[in-house]
């Protein structure tokens, strides 16, 4: 637990934790509003977004891609709502139509454009490259105080921390109206809360979290963290505040356990190579969910 840990594991571990918590926070509200699958839809449409951004700017850079992804998420939400209203298609099917079509368009664009030379492929988009986000300048715990070494941190880390900060701040500021609008929309409306705007804001916050997390860890973690920790927490308590804290705890725990199991687990079983950390984090969160579903104190509705 020394220099090697700081260099190889500290940054990915922190990024994993931040991403997990940033997704779990809005996931709580999405879960209670029965909109969990918005996260699924968003994480699919992120692919065409980053590819369009890449085609427009011609380079792999973080900010244009995040903007592209956020734009695609917004387009998807608007399109889903449009065909739901215009075509009178039920919302699940509307979602299914839009996100598959946009994902297919993304794959087609990827095949058509000359992206073979750069590191942009579907597998990367699905399960990210958490393990590769190492901190080469981190020579030991002392490096945490060394400004030169800190500059060498993978840029995903400050970006993810910032995203988590924004998401947490939004949750804190809009706590009361969100709570009211989630549990009793009619009452919230009579209290003068702009329910529709708040709902859109929640989706946008979720999209921001999804896009930032996607950039660092791939979309599979995003879907898992939107749903599994909040769903696990839901079976632990009936109080919203407690549920949020539980979900944060579960998110952190699955990020840590998942990362450690992926990195060191195979070694214990005599393997030599690590397995996908993103996949393992999702798996661990699923195990927690099944444990809660079997023995959680509030598992029945």
């Amino acid at each position, binding site marked *: 637990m020394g220099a090697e840990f700081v260099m190889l594991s500290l940054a990915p571990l922190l990024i994993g934790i931040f991403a997990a918590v940033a997704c779990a926070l809005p996931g709580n509200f999405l879960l209670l509003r029965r909109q969990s699958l918005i996260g699924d839809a968003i994480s699919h449409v992120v692919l065409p977004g980053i590819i369009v951004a890449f085609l427009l700017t011609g380079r792999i850079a973080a900010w244009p891609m995040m903007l592209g992804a956020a734009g695609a998420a917004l387009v998807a939400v608007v399109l889903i709502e449009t065909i739901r209203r215009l075509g009178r298609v039920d919302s699940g099917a509307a979602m299914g139509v839009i996100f598959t079509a946009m994902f297919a368009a993304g794959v087609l664009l990827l095949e058509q454009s000359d992206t073979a030379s750069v590191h942009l492929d*579907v597998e990367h988009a699905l399960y990210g490259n958490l393990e590769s986000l190492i901190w080469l300048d981190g020579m030991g715990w002392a490096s945490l105080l060394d400004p030169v070494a800190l500059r060498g941190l993978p840029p995903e880390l400050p970006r993810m921390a910032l995203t988590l900060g924004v998401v947490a701040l939004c949750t804190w500021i809009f706590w009361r109206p969100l709570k009211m609008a989630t549990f009793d929309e009619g009452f919230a409306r009579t209290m003068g809360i702009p329910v529709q705007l708040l709902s859109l804001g929640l989706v946008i916050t979720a999209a921001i979290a999804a896009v930032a997390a996607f950039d660092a860890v791939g979309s599979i973690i995003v879907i898992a963290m939107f749903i599994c920790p909040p769903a696990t927490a839901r079976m632990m308590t009936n109080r919203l505040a407690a549920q949020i804290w539980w979900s944060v705890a579960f998110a952190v725990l699955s990020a840590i356990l998942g990362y450690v199991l992926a990195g060191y687990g195979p070694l214990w079983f005599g*393997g030599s190579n690590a397995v996908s950390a993103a996949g393992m984090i999702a798996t661990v969160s699923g195990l927690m969910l*099944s444990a809660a579903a079997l023995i959680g104190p509030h598992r029945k509705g």
Partner: protein
Amino acid sequence: MLIDALFLQIGYNATLVTLGSATLGLAAGATGTFLFLRKRALVADAVSHATLPGLALAFMLMVAMGGDGRNLAGLMAGSALSAWAGLLCLSWLTRHTRLAEDAAIGAVLSVFFGFGIVLLTVVQTLSAGRQAGLESFLLGSTAGMLFSDALLIAAGGLCVLACALALRRPLLLVAFDPGYAQTQGINVQRMDLAIMTLVMAITVVGLKVVGLILIVALLIIPAATARFWSNRADRVVLLAGLFGGLSGYIGAAVSATAPGLPTGPIIVLVGFGFFVGSLLLSPGRGVLSSALRHRAYQRQVHLRQGLLALARQQPVYEAMTRRLLRRAGLVRADGVPTPEGHSRAAAALRDETRWQALRSSMHLSELSTRDDGLTLILDVLTQDQIAELDRRINASPRVV
């Protein structure tokens, strides 16, 4: 080139893929309709993502037993088993916990897929040389499809289609009204399970061509498209099969014409093209026809109100009404009614007066629900009844 491809003239492999995809699309479209009408479209997404662990496990098992890990039948069996496990988890979670179905779908989808990814990385390290593209099942790949593969896909698709059609009556009954279906002695739970099993079978059959991420599109999009064209369930099933088959056929043919056109995504996009076309153009529920209907209705209302205003010698200020009256030749540019305008206005006022009289009439007043301000009373009443109304109007001028 595209024409050649559409007529299956560009080679053996392309023909194989095109026919296989068309069969798959046909079966998926028809089967997906039951799921769509039951409003559980996204369950298919969970099922399809849940195939990944089984795929990887089947590969490992076949390699461990010394066989070829890429045997399509073996991989299909493995993916069917794990999709089945995912389906059981899903229904257990919705039935025995407080989680709503959408949360359960998301949980099963992400956890099974995540676990599948873990196994996939294990496969990559186990036999680095021979893993040879399990990733291709994520997005499908038709390059180097064997005759036996195509046959398996087509036969599987047709089997599922036959089962779906055999079960169509109870399935539709459950989809529209589960409560009524129960009273008819249909086991709703078992029928739901049957739909899901068929969906799972389609997913497994379609893995090779479309891939597990996009297969859900083949189940949902044709059904949603067909729904625009008919209100009758059996026709929707037929049309969905047709749209699905066409998407599969055209998509596979297009993708064979040039490199860099992956089959699965092209099939999905062709299907989406049909969907958008139907959304805009279908006669009943389409956007264009609704807009035209709305516009015609608006005109009728404006014209009627304008005529009534003319008859009561009130000035008409509203721009659209004035324009409509002018264009119909009912008023002159200065707003004075033409002779035809005078007679139409009088007719409108007479109609309106008769409706009012009808409302206060003893035995006709229930017909006043038919008064939407547009229906002519001539279309509702007989000549005798109108004559009677006119007598009442002339007897008591107060009604006017």
